[in-house]
């Protein structure tokens, strides 16, 4: 059972290697690697579900010496989301890239990115996270440049530099901790860390470094151009997975090992930045003229929501209330992940058909692609947080916690974000109703349209109505990891 942990990281890595060695068969090999990696994750989820949290120390060296991988409740869920989204992106990408050279570049980089994501989610110590971050940044920047346009190149170069700056800052934080404690294992640190100036500085540096990667307001400046200019499957991966994982790592540090170091003021600051991100990102999305730019700005907003949970969780003692709220946070992250990937895949489909993605001229295309428009609509429902999507339940619980704890001021950004999101989503959907002729069928290009549609249905119906099981997994396993 515990073999599934290293396999979850090494299978995509092997796939990357194979697709590099045999670029002519990249698509077949890549799909095989994607299927195998997803199967391993499915195995891992079942294992955690039945046996509780898993931990593997590579080579038999236990912490603080060895490298550990850990699968608890929360990161298993994120791992599962990553696998499903990545599988959908893999299927979609096979049809998206027509160019052989692009395809040859895409698969190794994409599988490398997937391996980095899994490594980050499973990492059990601060240094492993650093390695994962570097890998993630390099693969991500190279993928973002695949579009090949001048704008895409300059955006991805900026992304690379910001990523490096972020990981350097993070590494500085790691060094501080290592100097003071002589080890970096998250589980051990949780028992040893005490409140102090060095620890607080270290946490600030770690958070700052990760905040660059997560595009937390006001460090989100690099995100919209990068995501808007990358090829659609890449944007889907960057928006749905990369940002989410970086944000999750911040939350993990704040709620887990560094919980004793955090102060209410710091948590409120994070929440405030999140709230600013929600309002600012939604506002910019509303003003965006292009569909993919809209989606990119909305990613800034969706990341923001996750940080509003921090001030509400910070003072909460372990117990059912805390588990409920952490579940709500995860539910929101998962829903947004699925929905944002679906949204980008659909946007790419629209762009390929229309030859552009200017929102004001989308009318005919939207009417000609019913399944794609439907995907945009369903994903939009999840992004707004309307029922029955998972983010609605997440938002309900978040509002409940804010009111119950007397921190009612968080209501304002939540409602403002909801209404702004509704405005920008329906600005797009309104174009789907016009007098253009319509096709006879609902789905016209299965391989390109169905992956997005499936992801959107998971976000709206699956996570909305079957979310109860999520808490089942969280309660079965120790929550924090």
């Amino acid at each position, binding site marked *: 059972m515990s073999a599934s942990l290293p396999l979850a990281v090494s299978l995509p890595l092997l796939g990357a290697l194979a697709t590099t060695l045999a670029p002519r068969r990249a698509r077949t090999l890549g799909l095989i690697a994607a299927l195998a990696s997803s199967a391993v994750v499915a195995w891992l989820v079942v294992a955690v579900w039945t046996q509780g949290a898993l931990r593997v120390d590579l080579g038999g060296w236990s912490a603080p010496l060895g490298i550990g991988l850990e699968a608890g409740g929360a990161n298993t869920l994120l791992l599962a989301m990553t696998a499903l989204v990545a599988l959908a992106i893999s299927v979609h990408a096979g049809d998206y890239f027509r160019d052989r050279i692009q395809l040859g570049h895409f698969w190794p980089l994409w599988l490398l990115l997937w391996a980095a994501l899994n490594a980050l989610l499973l990492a059990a110590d601060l240094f492993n996270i650093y390695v994962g971050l570097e890998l993630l940044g390099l693969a991500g920047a190279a993928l973002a440049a695949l579009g090949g346009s001048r704008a895409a190149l300059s955006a991805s170069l900026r992304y690379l530099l910001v990523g490096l700056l972020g990981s350097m800052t993070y590494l500085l934080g790691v060094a501080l901790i290592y100097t003071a404690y002589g080890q970096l294992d998250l589980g051990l640190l949780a028992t040893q860390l005490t409140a102090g100036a060095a620890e607080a500085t270290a946490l600030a540096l770690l958070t700052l470094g990760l905040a660059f990667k997560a595009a937390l307001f006001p460090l989100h400046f690099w995100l919209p151009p990068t995501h808007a200019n990358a090829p659609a499957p890449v944007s889907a991966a960057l928006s749905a997975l990369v940002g989410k994982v970086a944000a999750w790592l911040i939350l993990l540090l704040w709620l887990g090992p560094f919980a004793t170091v955090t102060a209410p003021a710091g948590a409120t600051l994070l929440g405030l930045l999140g709230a600013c991100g929600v309002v600012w990102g939604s506002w910019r999305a509303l003003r965006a003229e292009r569909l993919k730019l809209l989606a990119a700005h909305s990613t800034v907003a969706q990341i923001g929501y996750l940080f509003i949970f921090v001030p509400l969780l910070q003072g909460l003692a372990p117990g059912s209330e805390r588990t409920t709220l952490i579940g709500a946070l995860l539910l929101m992250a998962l829903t947004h992940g699925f929905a944002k990937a679906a949204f980008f895949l659909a946007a790419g489909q629209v762009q390929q058909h229309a030859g552009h993605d200017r929102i004001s001229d989308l009318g005919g295309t939207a009417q000609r692609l019913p399944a794609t428009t439907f995907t945009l609509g369903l994903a939009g429902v999840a992004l707004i947080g309307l*029922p029955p999507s998972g983010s609605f339940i997440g938002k309900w*619980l978040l509002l409940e916690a804010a009111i119950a704890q007397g921190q009612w001021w968080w209501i304002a950004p939540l*409602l403002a974000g909801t209404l702004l999101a509704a405005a920008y989503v329906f600005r797009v959907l309104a174009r789907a109703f016009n007098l253009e002729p319509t096709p006879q069928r*609902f*789905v016209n290009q299965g391989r390109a349209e169905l992956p997005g549609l499936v992801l959107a249905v998971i976000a709206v119906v699956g996570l909305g109505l079957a979310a109860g099981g999520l808490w089942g997994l969280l309660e079965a396993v120790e929550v924090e990891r």
Partner: protein
Amino acid sequence: MSSALDTLLPMLIVCSSLVPGAVIFLVREDSHLLRTTLNMAGALTKLVLVGVMIWGVYHEHDYESRINLAPGLDLVFAADALSVLFVTLSTVLWLVTTIYAIGYLERTPNRSRFFGFFSLCVSATVGIALAGNLLTFVICYEILTLATYPLVAHRGTPEATRGARIYLYYTLSGGALLLLGAVWLQTLAGPLDFVQGGILGALPTALHGQFQVIFVLLLAGLGVKAALVPLHGWLPQSMVAPAPVSALLHAVAVVKAGAFGIVRVVYDVYGVGLSASLGLLGLLGLLASITIVYGSLRALVQDGLKARLAYSTVSQVSYIALGTSIFGPIATVGGLVHLVHQGIMKITLFFCAGNYAETLGVHRVSQMDGVGRRMPWTTLAFSAGALGMIGIPPLAGFVSKWYLGLGAIDGGAGWVLVVLAASGLLNAAYFLPILYRAWFRAPPEQWPQEHISRRRLETRAALLWPPLVTAALCVLAGLLAAAPFSPLEWAELIARREYDR
């Protein structure tokens, strides 16, 4: 009856339109037969299931489907007398409207999309009717917004998109307030299961101030759909929708969802006693009265037939809120029975308006001279609906107004009689001229746009039968008001269970 059926039945009733709806999206545009089969199969299955439920609830059987969504949050569909009243109304009128819509949309594009969302819309309405707690209600209420938006925008003209956008602005803003109110109330009172007599009465009086604020929030959210003045602005705009949609919107789905929500909140969350002692009923009654008079006044000056009917809806739906706002069982009966009566009368009127437009191109009241000679059956149905709205005995509307008036006297709210009288006069003032034109004026040389020529029937059969059936219901609901299982009897059953606890 087995217990498995008890836990499944409410869910099955919701799914009986949800599943065909989801499948219809995938149906090829030109497969009319398959689509019609799915539609009718769903509608008839639902009718049978609801029949079982009526029988069960009458014999005090408990039906409840419950799914856990998150800790402390359950999706509950349950049946009580009130939900059965609304579910029956939606199911019967959905069947009729589906037939009408099949006839109305013949040879137009995007029918799979239309009927898909149409079924979703009915599923959401039925979900609202069967919602067993406030969370479920909010979920279905928002899904209803989402499902009706594509129906309002269906035609794809610039006016349709504009109307749909305005509709969305109002309903989503209202939805946000409703959500806030519901969450806030849940933090104070725990899971808000609908219980007859309310659940807030048992809580400490220190919370009463917050209850009042929350009620205003909830009322703002529900008032948008119920078209309470000043939140009614979307309703006249959304009549750009195709006639079957307007019919459904005005009679069953959207405005009724708002009114039904107000009834639920007052009776089954706050409890009518607590609502009265907190002064909330006074607020509701005031808003309802203003809306009744204002809607009628605006209807008076509209020349567009659908616009006049739309303002008439604004006015008539508030009778339900008015009945709810008067403390006393008789007024409650009046409000509840009007939930049904307004539905069947208004759907008749909209079907007829659609027939005039579709057959002759008549859209305005001023074009209706002599239309009764060209389309006697449609005009007969229209007359039944219009006279019922005015409150002429023995039609359905008379029964509602009679109980409202009696209830007002019984509840010591004499001023309501003034509102009722004024509204009755205004109703007559804007409906009777239409009837006069239609029956007694000479028809013009040529109709504006005669799409369907007169053969054996005055218009297509699928357009003619639905208004005749609903018009017959208006007459029967009035004539047989005292018969068992009539809407009135059922409303009295609900009122008895609310007040005689």
